[in-house]
């Protein structure tokens, strides 16, 4: 025995001692759904594409985004970004400016001419899409990527629907709109303009379509009866905005315009009137707080010089003056007339009281049901009562935003795809929410949100130039990196570093980590120190 004095055993390694047997609970990696993704009406994987943008791989970020939404440059401008109100970073300093990064990616893709090329092999199925608004465009895009032959018809002279005829240029430049629509067409979608379809079942049969998605929107303006002489000029918001796009001359609005209503469309018209040189006023029967328009729209309108008259109803229209009645909010929260009247000098009234769906074409189809509020009834999978006919966007019960419409288009496309294959579409089950409480905010450094430059106020009042400009690369990268990656591992190596037992295995870039349960004692430090809450401690079975 060749050993020193008093040594009888060979040197052994502690690796022989499987300390994992001490464990009473074990760590497991989880993916939770971040609040931004949870609220996104278009179902974007926001955290997922920000992850790529953080490393400067904008192409990968854009492609990831495009899996769910074909219109990032539009969406980055026109979406009301509910994601940002839900963003956990808002509880730390300010929410990630998700829309600004989305827009940066969208603009970059247009500038670089990026195209989507990966498409499923042709299925041999044909789908008719009616309405080239956000919903129809989104459905066409997803159906085309799924390998179906798509024909997209629109009754109007130009594609885009409310994105063109509802959202003013200063919020959405037309080059951007055209570029993103062009990319969908480039995917092989056949676009037929000035094509109104009055008999859908017949059109499907004649054209040999296997399914149809209808999304013609809601563009019948609601009206009210207001006593007025014949000569009084009363217009509706939808036609004013539409005229801006199609007319040779801008609409005749006169010198002083009253816009009646308190929604986003009312703001759009008032701001448009202001830009056309008119004096613009908004009359709304309730208070500012009760306005359905988004706060920032009202604020921007006010900054641009739009005058607001809250708690007023229009009672009588004369050629150069309007009579309005003061209102008060009753105990039930509804406006009550006070019997007090005022006169406002104005020469044009624009009604912005909301829009209704033209159901004449659909309601006459067998099995299609119209709901009590005049929209088309669809099932979970967006299908109407007529087999193979799906509907979405503003014409079905919804929040009526561009993003909701885009989401409908995607959802319908995926359901149509399953229906055409004789299956039913089963969305992947959602993970639990990545709440703020699950984060360890210590690890995130302070970094307030980058402010998007706003066009100076004088130019905003007089021109139709876009009022918000985009982020440059540095800003976009900075902004993307503010993302906390809520509930999804971003490979910060914390678990790998903090384990006193070296029981975390690093799998390499992009591959995340694994636990070595032979040695993990279940102390839970990794879970406690995970910045983004992507580790759960699960009790071991007895």
């Amino acid at each position, binding site marked *: 025995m060749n050993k020193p004095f008093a040594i009888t055993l060979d*040197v052994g*390694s502690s690796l022989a001692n499987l*300390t994992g047997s001490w464990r009473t609970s074990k760590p497991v990696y989880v993916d939770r759904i971040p609040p931004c993704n949870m609220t996104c009406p278009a179902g974007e994987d926001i955290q997922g594409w920000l992850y790529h943008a953080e490393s400067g791989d904008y192409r990968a970020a854009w492609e990831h985004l495009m899996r769910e939404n074909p219109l990032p440059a539009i969406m980055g401008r026109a979406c009301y970004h509910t994601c940002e109100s839900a963003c956990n970073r808002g509880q730390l300093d300010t929410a990630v400016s998700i829309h600004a990064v989305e827009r940066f990616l969208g603009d970059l893709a247009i500038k670089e001419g990026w195209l989507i090329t990966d498409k499923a092999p042709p299925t041999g199925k044909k789908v008719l899409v009616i309405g080239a608004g956000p919903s129809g465009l989104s459905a066409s895009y997803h159906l085309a990527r799924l390998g179906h032959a798509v024909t997209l018809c629109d009754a109007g002279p130009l594609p885009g629907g409310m994105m063109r005829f509802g959202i003013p240029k200063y919020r959405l430049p037309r080059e951007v709109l055209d570029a993103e629509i062009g990319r969908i067409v480039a995917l092989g979608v056949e676009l037929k303009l000035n094509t109104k379809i009055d008999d859908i079942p017949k059109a499907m049969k004649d054209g040999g379509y296997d399914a149809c998605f209808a999304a013609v929107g809601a563009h019948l303006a609601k009206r009210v009866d207001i006593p007025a002489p014949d000569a009084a000029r009363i217009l509706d918001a939808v036609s004013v905005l539409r005229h801006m796009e199609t007319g040779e001359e801008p609409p005749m609005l006169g010198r002083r315009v009253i816009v009646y209503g308190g929604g986003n469309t009312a703001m759009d018209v008032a701001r448009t009137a202001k830009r056309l040189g008119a004096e613009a006023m908004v009359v709304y029967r309730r208070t500012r707080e009760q306005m359905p328009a988004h706060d920032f729209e009202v604020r921007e309108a006010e900054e641009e010089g739009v005058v607001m008259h809250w708690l007023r109803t229009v009672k009588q229209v004369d050629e150069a003056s309007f009579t309005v009645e003061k209102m008060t909010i009753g105990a039930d929260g509804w406006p009550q007339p006070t019997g007090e009247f005022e006169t406002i000098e104005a020469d044009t009234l624009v009604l912005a009281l909301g829009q209704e769906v033209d159901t004449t074409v659909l309601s006459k189809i067998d099995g299609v049901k119209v709901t009590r509020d005049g929209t088309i009834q669809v099932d979970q999978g967006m299908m109407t009562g007529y087999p193979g006919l799906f509907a979405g966007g503003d014409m079905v019960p919804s929040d009526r935003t561009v993003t909701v419409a885009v989401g409908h288009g995607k959802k319908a496309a995926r359901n149509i795809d399953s229906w055409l294959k004789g299956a039913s579409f089963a969305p992947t089950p959602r993970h639990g929410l990545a709440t703020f409480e699950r984060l360890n905010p210590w690890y995130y450094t302070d*970094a307030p949100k980058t402010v998007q430059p706003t066009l100076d106020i004088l130019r905003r009042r007089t021109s139709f130039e876009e009022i918000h400009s985009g982020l440059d690369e540095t800003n976009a990268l900075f902004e993307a*990196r*503010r993302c906390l990656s809520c509930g999804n591992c971003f490979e910060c*190596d914390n678990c790998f*570093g903090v384990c*006193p037992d070296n029981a975390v295995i690093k799998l390499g870039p992009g591959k995340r980590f694994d636990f070595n349960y032979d040695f993990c004692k279940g102390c*839970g430090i990794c879970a406690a120190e995970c910045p983004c809450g992507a580790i759960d401690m699960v009790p071991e079975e007895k």
Partner: protein
Amino acid sequence: MPNETVQPIKFYQTGTLTVGNRLLDPEKRTVQASGERTNAITSGHRACQGCGEALGARYALDAAMRATGNRVVAVNATGCLEVFTTPYPETAWQLPWLHSLFGNAAAVASGVAAAMRAKGRPEVRVIAQGGDGGTTDIGFGCLSGMFERNDDVLYICYDNEAYMNTGVQRSSATPPAARTATTPAVGDKPGNVFGTGKNLPLIAMAHGIPYVATASVADLRDLEAKVQKAMTIRGARYIHVFVPCPLGWGSASQDTIKLARLAIESGLFPVFEAEYGEVVRSRAIRRKVPVEDYLKPQRRFAHLFKAGKPDVDRIARLQAVADANIKRFNLLRPDGDA
């Protein structure tokens, strides 16, 4: 006293605060973030769940191994770190490692350094390490001699504030009011008495040695930077690492790093660096917390928070200790809020 030891990377997703960061250049990443780190203490050691000492020692020695190209020998005092890594005949150590007695680690290390010099291998560096008991009490004479002779040794003390290995007895590093087996929570002044104990980093500084630093398992980058720096210096060096002990402190095993962080953020454990007896840098508090935040999760301080009658006076005295540290080491300043 700016925070120079820490890399000035701002506005990344997590700044410099996580162990790794996939957005950083590889050479700027921590040793612990690397899949190739040496794991000076390998798995299978018998430290308790959530042991701060096992973690701190791996952090420090991996950094030292990286800094020296693995040419480093460790000499260990008796204590948990020695016991849980080397139950005969097993070892968890992945570097040449020696253990002699409880109180003589500094002297043995001085001897190893002399031997290396004699053998013409001065590139082999020597680290001595021990717990707070082995350092501030029984090993103090040997350590002071090592400092005085300016022997070429880096001494690292892993401070868990008591003699943990033998069942949580008080050491001269045990904080006031803490309950230990020898300072029980009984009588009208439960726990350790106020006004006793030693501050070893300050005593080390008084020897005028080239480098003294404090560090914590809650700030890995800072700890690695300090070990790395210490390895560039010849002569006697001292690093005092704060390592929570779930068993001895009566804290939850997952709270080890959190408690270390709260000790820093409350001001109770000042993190600083000194050269030749002068403080040259300190780590600013980032999110200041009252001492209660740190004390409450630990059962050794539970007697301060008895339901219905918290020990307001002695909590205030502990707060005064923190406030004095904040003042002395200038811990509250604008660069802390990053």
